[in-house]
């Protein structure tokens, strides 16, 4: 499902002295089946933006079209069926392990499907499927989520969101606090889910993650969209302007260019492509 923002503004505590514009006339299309990364400083409006996607917040101006759901500032125009929207848009918030509450893992994962109207048996079935998908075997089903390790809890929480089979998945810093191997495993899982045609929206400060996983980057600043492009395009630019980090690969490549190695920034996306480009540049020099 694509998501279309049309002139969306959002003001916190409108009509009060604390009023604060978090989004200012955002026009944006997030394409179906792609991974869109949303980047920008803390306070640039990223979290307000994603909360419009499953109507946790309603725009104060403009509208967001999510499939056939319209989240509009105009109450009359706004679609009523919140449940089917939230079923389709899965939200993995930062540190999702803090939303676990049931006494067994399978019940917790089945909680979402149950809320969205599945029968008990069906919901458990969906829960088991989701648990296998995140790599937790049958032995976890009946355990208490509170006795698991941090990484396992995170997996249970993610399974709880996958169990409703969302067609859009919003990921807010999904790897924070995980060790490198678990982080990689988690991202590999989302890549796998993307293959089914799921649209991924990734909110992160980690530019290495953006470079590796995103098809499109949305740069936000003070509630406005500053740029929409591919990661390669963005990182080839000078990033100070947007106060973003440079991924390690690009940081090294840019330093190498400064030192006079005739390197091309085109198509750099990981360590091996950087090594390849460096080889090419050095060989060219030798000739």
């Amino acid at each position, binding site marked *: 499902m694509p998501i279309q923002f049309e002139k969306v503004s959002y003001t916190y505590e409108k009509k*009060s002295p604390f009023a604060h514009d978090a989004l200012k006339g955002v026009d944006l299309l997030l394409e179906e089946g792609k991974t869109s990364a949303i980047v920008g400083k803390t306070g640039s409006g990223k979290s307000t933006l994603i909360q419009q996607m499953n109507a946790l917040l309603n725009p104060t101006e403009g509208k967001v079209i999510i499939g056939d759901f319209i989240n509009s500032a105009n109450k009359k125009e706004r679609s009523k069926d919140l449940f089917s929207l939230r079923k389709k848009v899965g*939200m993995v*918030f930062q540190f999702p392990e*803090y*939303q676990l509450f049931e006494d067994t893992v399978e019940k917790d994962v089945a909680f979402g499907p149950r809320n969205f109207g599945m029968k008990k048996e069906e919901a458990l079935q969906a829960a088991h499927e989701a648990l296998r998908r995140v790599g937790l075997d049958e032995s976890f089903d009946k355990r208490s989520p509170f006795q698991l390790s941090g990484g396992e809890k995170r997996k249970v929480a993610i399974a709880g969101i996958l169990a409703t089979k969302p067609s859009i998945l919003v990921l807010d810093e999904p790897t924070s606090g995980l060790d490198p191997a678990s982080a990689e495993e988690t991202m590999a899982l989302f890549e796998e889910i993307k293959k089914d045609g799921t649209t991924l929206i990734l909110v992160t400060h980690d530019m290495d993650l953006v470079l590796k996983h995103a098809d499109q980057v949305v740069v936000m600043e003070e509630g406005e969209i500053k740029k929409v492009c591919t990661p390669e395009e963005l990182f080839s630019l000078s990033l100070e302007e947007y106060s973003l980090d440079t991924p390690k690969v690009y940081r090294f490549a840019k330093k190498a260019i400064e030192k006079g190695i005739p390197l091309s920034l085109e198509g750099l996306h990981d360590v091996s492509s950087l090594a390849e480009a460096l080889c090419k540049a050095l060989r060219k020099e030798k000739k």
Partner: protein
Amino acid sequence: MSSITMGRYVPYRSPIHLLDPRTKLVCLVLLVVSVFLGYANYSTTFLMTGLSLLLVLVLFAMTRMSFLSLLKSLKSLWFMLIFLLLIYAITPRSDNLDWVAFFIYDYPIYWASILDALKILVRLMLMVALSLILTASTKPLDLTAGIEWYLSPIHFLGVNTAAWAMVLSLALRFIPTILEDVQRIMKAQSSRGVDFKRGKLTVRARALISLVVPLVVSSLVRSDELGDAMEGRGYDPRSKRTRYRKLTFHWGDLIALLLCAAFCALCITMSVTSFDPFLTWFGVTVR
């Protein structure tokens, strides 16, 4: 956010901010007593309440709190007014029963009931405003230090007053953090199909559990880590500590105390002697 800003410390250096918290606590008690005294008749009561109101408004302006926040906090008192009216209407006081305001079907509503309800309401309002002035002008830490000072006599009974004061100040420190947790968890569970606003009783009970369990779990984790952090920085409730914030009693404190004591004494004298200024000074008999 509005609920969090209420009752919070407002950083500013007004004469009230500079007072010793111990002084402010005594003054609060004196003024609350003054506000709740009864007088010879309604007219005197409202005259004195008017005086108190004036005093409170002056104090309020001095602390630089916004009147808007006062009005907001008083909004919830509407319910109280109706409730009080109802109680007084059902159980009218035995005197003053000749003065009927109106009839609801054949049931008489007396002016006395309305005035009594109004009287209580205004007094409650003044008490709330006075407490707000205290919390807005005093840092939580100073406030607990003040309370601790008054509790210090029971220290000799084997009660660790310093430890209890620490508990109190930590509770105050963590209120905003826990409110943030509440919001975060509610958003996460809403995304999993929980409706916190509507539904049958059983559904709402489950919704509440899905909020409370994670909240308790995260608070336990917080308190555990906080305990480690405090111990790691050398906190031991049994050993001697020094105090960064010294409570000092200045001339201003003496003046504030005298003024409040004088006002309280005036009110008490008038109340005890059933002094009626309208009759004594103007020779008018009023209700």
